[in-house]
């Protein structure tokens, strides 16, 4: 008894130069769904694979679960190579997008399924299922059939079913995409709470950047089968390494210009409309083409400022005022929070924008 009560050690996952090749059903050509992906996921951390559809994130997850086998590279789970293992032999448990609950079983039997396969004695199954249902706040629903549950409850059952077997790694395949917006926010908090409580390793696939930011320790942003950037949510949001990453994570403005001199970590960039100042991670070549990445909420609009512009759209959104202004040739989006305290500018007005150097980010390797 005492042995089973002990929380199992979470396992880390390592992907070593993983590639997966698919055949395009229309053209018959081979292409890389996942190309040379290497990763290290620490035990007990919450990692999110984020990216637009078709970027290879689900394929990567399914390779870890064992439903697809990589064409190149090796996957390690808790230090052991697992490429040769079938899904039922791997110490992973997955929560599916469609929940994949068994409609012919009730809640209890659904959750107990994995334990029964492991030949766990009956009283212990009952105890563990009871505990886990308590954890996901579904106590008393044991005898319900799955079609008598709401979407959120079904989601909890799916989670409980995966958790109850105490897997080394918990996998989530866009688990919240079938829920409505409010429930989604509630459930992601729940998932994060449970993951922290159990200290389990979790790998989470989503295309929703706000979801990714809310729950992850680490985000891995993928694009066309390769990793575009990885890092903490804060890191990825404020220091995107490419236009793609910046654009994918939240709304973003790009101001094109030429780098001028840099001192005390601040680079001056010459734009069409004027000079802007950016905090630089490194010193760009003088005169190089570069881009300033700045978030809409980081821009201040006012009667005075650095860059002159014309208001093209002014729209009250409740918690903020939404502006589109024209700076030179570039359209810049601005969200001005709590507009009731401030002056509201009308379309056609000539105003100025400015932003603090540390709120903006400089990209000097521009994709053409």
């Amino acid at each position, binding site marked *: 008894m005492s042995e089973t009560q002990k929380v199992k050690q979470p396992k880390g996952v390592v992907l070593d130069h993983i590639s997966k090749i698919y055949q395009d059903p229309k053209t018959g050509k081979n292409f890389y769904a996942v190309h040379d992906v290497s990763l290290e996921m620490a035990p007990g951390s919450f990692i999110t694979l984020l990216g637009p559809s078709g970027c290879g994130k689900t394929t990567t997850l399914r390779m870890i679960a064992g439903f697809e086998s990589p064409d190149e590279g090796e996957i390690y789970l808790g230090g052991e190579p697992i490429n040769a293992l079938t899904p039922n032999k791997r110490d992973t448990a*997955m929560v599916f997008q469609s929940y*994949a609950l068994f409609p012919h079983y009730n809640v209890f039997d659904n959750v107990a399924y*994995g334990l029964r396969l492991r030949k766990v004695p009956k009283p212990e199954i009952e105890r563990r299922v009871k505990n886990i249902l308590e954890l996901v706040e579904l106590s008393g629903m044991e005898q319900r059939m799955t079609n008598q549950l709401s979407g959120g409850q079904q989601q909890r059952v799916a989670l409980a079913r995966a958790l109850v077997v105490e897997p080394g790694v918990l996998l989530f395949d866009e688990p919240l995409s079938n829920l409505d917006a409010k429930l989604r926010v509630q459930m992601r908090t729940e998932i994060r709470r449970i993951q922290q409580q159990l200290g389990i390793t979790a790998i989470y696939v989503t295309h929703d950047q706000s979801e990714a930011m809310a729950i992850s320790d680490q985000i891995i942003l993928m694009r066309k089968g390769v990793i575009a950037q990885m890092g903490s949510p804060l890191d990825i949001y404020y220091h995107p390494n490419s236009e793609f990453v910046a654009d994918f994570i939240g709304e973003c403005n790009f101001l094109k210009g030429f780098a001028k001199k840099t001192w005390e970590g601040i680079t001056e960039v010459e734009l069409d409309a004027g000079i802007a100042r950016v905090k630089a991670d490194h010193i760009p070549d003088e005169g190089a083409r570069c881009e300033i990445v700045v978030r809409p909420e980081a821009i201040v609009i006012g009667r005075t400022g650095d860059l002159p512009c014309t208001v093209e759209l002014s729209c009250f959104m409740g918690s903020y005022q939404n502006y589109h202004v024209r700076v030179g040739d570039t359209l810049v989006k601005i969200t001005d929070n709590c507009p009731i305290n401030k002056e509201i500018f009308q379309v056609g007005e000539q105003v100025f924008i400015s932003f603090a150097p540390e709120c903006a980010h400089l990209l000097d390797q521009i994709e053409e």
Partner: protein
Amino acid sequence: MSQKQSASLDRKKFFADPVMVSTIILLIVFLAVFILYPLAILLVDSIYSNKTGITAQFFSGIFGEGAFATSLWKALLISVPALLLSILGGSALARAEKSSQNGTVQSLCRIMPPLGLILPLLAAAAYTLAVFDNRGSVAVFLQQAFNGGAGACLLIALVQAVILTPLCYRLIDGVTRLSVTAARDAAEEKALQHKQLMRNVILSLVVFGVNLLMIVFLYASVHGKYSFIVAISNTLKVGFLVGILSAGVGLLFAYVEVYVKVRTRFMSGLFKVVSMLPVVSPPFVLSLSMIMLFGKAGIITRHLLGIYDNDVYGFWGIAIVQTMTFFPVCYMMFRGLLKNIDPSMEEAARDMGASRMKVFTTVTLPLLLPGIGNAFLVTFIESIADFANPMIIGGSYDTLATTIYLQITGAYDKNGACAMAVVLLAITMLMFAVQKYVLERKTAATLTGKASRMRMLIEDKSVTIPLAILCSLMALFVVLMYVCVPFGAMFKTWGRDFTLTTKWFEQVFTKYKGLKAFQDSFVLSIISAPITALLSMIISYLVVKRKFKAKGFIELVSMLAMAVPGTVLGIGYIRGFAGGMFHTGFLQGIYGTGVILVIVFVVRSLPTGTRSGISALRQIDKSIEESAYDMGAGSLKVFTSVTLPLIKDSFLSGLVTAFVRSITAISAIILLVTPSYLLITVQINEFAEKGSYGIACAFATILIAITYGAVLLMNLVIRFFGTSRKTKEVE
């Protein structure tokens, strides 16, 4: 108040649409006259004759001479006390469970619910075996019991009581739990319990009824009319076996197609052929080739294996031929079901540590279970209604359908035939009701999920290769059976003289009026096909898109026709129209003409057409038609300008299916055809019965060519003029 107003408004709107009202009235009249009336007349004929008035003698004639009522009475006498006893026992147990803490009582109660299901099933199986083993020891024992042995009666009652007690316990337990829940006042839980209770009540009634019926059958198996008792036990035996075999083979094929990676051209071609066969296959064909391949002079038995006296006629012949005829239907059903299973469900099981076998037994199979029951019943119905195959390959092994046919064409025992037809109809109706209202719904309830992503196919060579080989062999065997027919028509004497000849084809046209036969069959079918297609489209349109009072009636009757065996319908038409409706001479004119043949064709193909029409129409968004109404189109205009073009493909395939079904129909037609019409299928039957396989094969070959040509033509037309092409181009 407002509800009343809107109802009257609805009515006003409804009657403002004269086209629809008159269509509905015409439809109701058609269905009533040509489906319900013949069946009603059968019932009347089986209990009424001019000489004796209303009498049960025809039923007692087939069930047991004069003693039918007595046996029923005695069965009741045994069963009712048994039921009372078991109710007492059940309630005593339920009370004991509440009050005592005795371990044995508790454990006894725990095994009661499953026993309540298992015991009646076991009993039913035992009874079935006893009925099959006609005039066997059980029956003799029962006979003695009925003849007055009080001890034997008591024993039967006790056995029945034991069988029924767990069921009663289930019931009473359900009631007490219900009252407890009522006190707690949880509405949802209560509804659930209510449902469970109702299920239990129905279950126990069914078990009780089956018990009673089985006793009657057992009694009848001793006293009943010999030909009927043999026929019914033969029919049920074949039906059970064919149902199980077809469902099994169909499941295997579907599983291989959906789950296993066997993507060679050859295999997918084979699977396509197998799925097409039931559409283009005329009856007899498999029986014919079975005889030619495995009969006394069969190529395989005699020339390959050197067996000279192989007997293909009889039970196994029918069972194999029917399995091969009907399993493609099961295959198509299972394919649809398996494709609807969300693959992530199986992946979830696999992810939690289940092996492939375990996934199949704990997830896939339970999900399919209602579907398997469904497939079994559908083939069971088809099998017991099948006339053509038992006729050719049955030999002296008579089934109900052939017995009825012989009864009316040979013995002229019209009332007896009617009574048998009613029994056959009752069996198919019961099965149909179970299939339609219990299993089909259950299947839909468990398998509503759409596949969320592509299924990972099984690539493991140790699985794929044996399965692929098994399926290919079976499919090749089926194809061989079909190919055998044209070859049969090309050799001089099958089994003896294998020189190529065109003699049989020539004889078809010179000696046996082949041209007239083809002309008659072709013309009648080509007339009935558009009628059927249009009628089934109208019915499905009304059923899916409109609301009116008689809708339930129209839907039910047009679906009911599916459960009516052709032989039964044929006899109904003979009895119903030979002397005009209700023997008044009204509509007598159509009897013996082509009109009644066309009507039979239409009625026989209507259910399949309606079914596919309904599923096609359900896919069209209601708002498309509503916008047409909104812009001022009448209901006829909406149907012709919007609905019909959208379901053009389905309409076309319905047209061809109706044509193929009509030109290959036999069971009802053979009873109604007159010498002024020569039909191909009737000709084939005649020559095959006579043993002139060359001629029969020649006829069958040309028939296959016609049906296959029709299907090819349909595919061509759909490819170039169909709606699906246009919508695809837009994409």
